[in-house]
């Protein structure tokens, strides 16, 4: 009895696997590149337009300065806001359904942040880091809805994944940078500037030299110069962070978009859905990295030095 049903299930899976594999092969041979390799004629309904990548976001409405990535960002804001509004409209002490799910997200994020940052600083970091994470995830996943980029107005696509516009990752990077510096000042006051302008050891060394203790002063002079130089490097690293934040997110999302486009061009059936799944995963990972790195830099900024 059980052996028979097991065998039947195995048969079903094998038939399905063979059918999917056959679909991949057929669609590859029918497409433009595959038919060129085999030497047959491309099948008309498998002939996908060659992928064209535009680095700059398009403007669907010619006289309005609104790009299609901006519209997508608005959509993801509306989706997030609507989700949280509906979920928290009539809250119950014992959550059910959507409220339960939202509380799960918030609780996991709170634990993730409080673990390295501690209770006091965790409450500072939590809103910004979680918002950045949720916004990037929403941007990445909204653009994975099938048919999302096919709607065209005035010959330009109406929607395009918001993270593939350089401006949106750059804006998020600037937000993250500003908040890190603000938290640094909030935690340490004006002495946060010591991280960047660390002249203390140099003055000490000069004082030693001018008070006649030349030998000890010359030894610590090098130390003083090094700490000044390290402070300047710190300024540079804080600024370069923004660039690396921007390009990491932008590059990953753009690479994903191009990869899906090329896979649809090469093999129109079955295979692109695997890459869709991969894109969903990478959107999540990139969002986690953006939020987590902001958290890490913030922790480094508020940390007390000995």
């Amino acid at each position, binding site marked *: 009895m059980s052996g028979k049903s097991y065998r039947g299930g195995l048969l079903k899976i094998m038939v399905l696997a063979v059918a999917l594999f056959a679909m991949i092969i057929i669609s590859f041979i029918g497409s433009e590149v595959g038919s060129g390799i085999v030497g047959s004629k491309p099948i008309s309904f498998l002939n996908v337009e060659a992928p064209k990548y535009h*680095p700059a976001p398009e403007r669907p409405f010619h006289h309005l300065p609104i790009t299609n990535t901006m519209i997508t960002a608005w959509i993801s804001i509306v989706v997030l806001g609507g989700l949280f509004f509906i979920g928290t409209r009539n809250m119950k002490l014992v959550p059910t359904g959507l409220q339960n799910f939202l509380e799960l997200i918030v609780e996991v994020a709170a634990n993730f942040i409080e673990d390295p940052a501690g209770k006091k600083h965790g409450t500072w970091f939590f809103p910004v880091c979680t918002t950045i994470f949720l916004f990037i995830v929403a941007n990445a996943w909204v653009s994975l809805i099938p048919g999302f980029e096919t709607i065209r107005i005035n010959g330009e696509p109406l929607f395009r994944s918001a993270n593939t516009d350089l401006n949106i990752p750059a804006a998020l990077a600037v937000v993250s940078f500003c908040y890190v510096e603000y938290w640094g000042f909030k935690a340490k006051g004006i002495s946060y500037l010591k991280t960047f302008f660390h002249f203390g050891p140099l003055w000490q060394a000069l004082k030693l030299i001018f008070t006649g203790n030349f030998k000890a002063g010359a030894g610590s002079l090098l130390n003083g110069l090094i700490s000044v130089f390290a402070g300047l490097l710190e300024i540079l690293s804080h600024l370069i962070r923004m660039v690396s934040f921007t*390009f990491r997110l932008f590059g990953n999302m753009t690479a994903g978009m191009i990869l899906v486009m090329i896979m649809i061009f090469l093999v129109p059936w079955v295979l692109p859905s695997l890459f869709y799944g991969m894109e969903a995963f990478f959107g999540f990972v990139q969002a986690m990295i953006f939020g987590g790195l902001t958290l890490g830099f913030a922790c480094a900024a508020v940390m007390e030095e000995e």
Partner: protein
Amino acid sequence: METWTTVAKLIGAGLAMGLGAIGPGVGIGILGMGAMNALGRNPEARGAIMTNMILGIAFAEAVAIYALVVAILLIFVA
């Protein structure tokens, strides 16, 4: 002249991506090796190792992504 500019752009983009992928490839290999070693020593910590490995891989991959951005800029913008 136009042709040579195009040639230089395409070669530059290909070299940028190809050479830029070497380092991250080695890095991801080392990361995988470390994760496998850790898994062999401590199979119970599978979840934590997996999460941290994926985070590390994403960081190593970011370097290749910079090379990709340079290649895209060379082909489409420059």
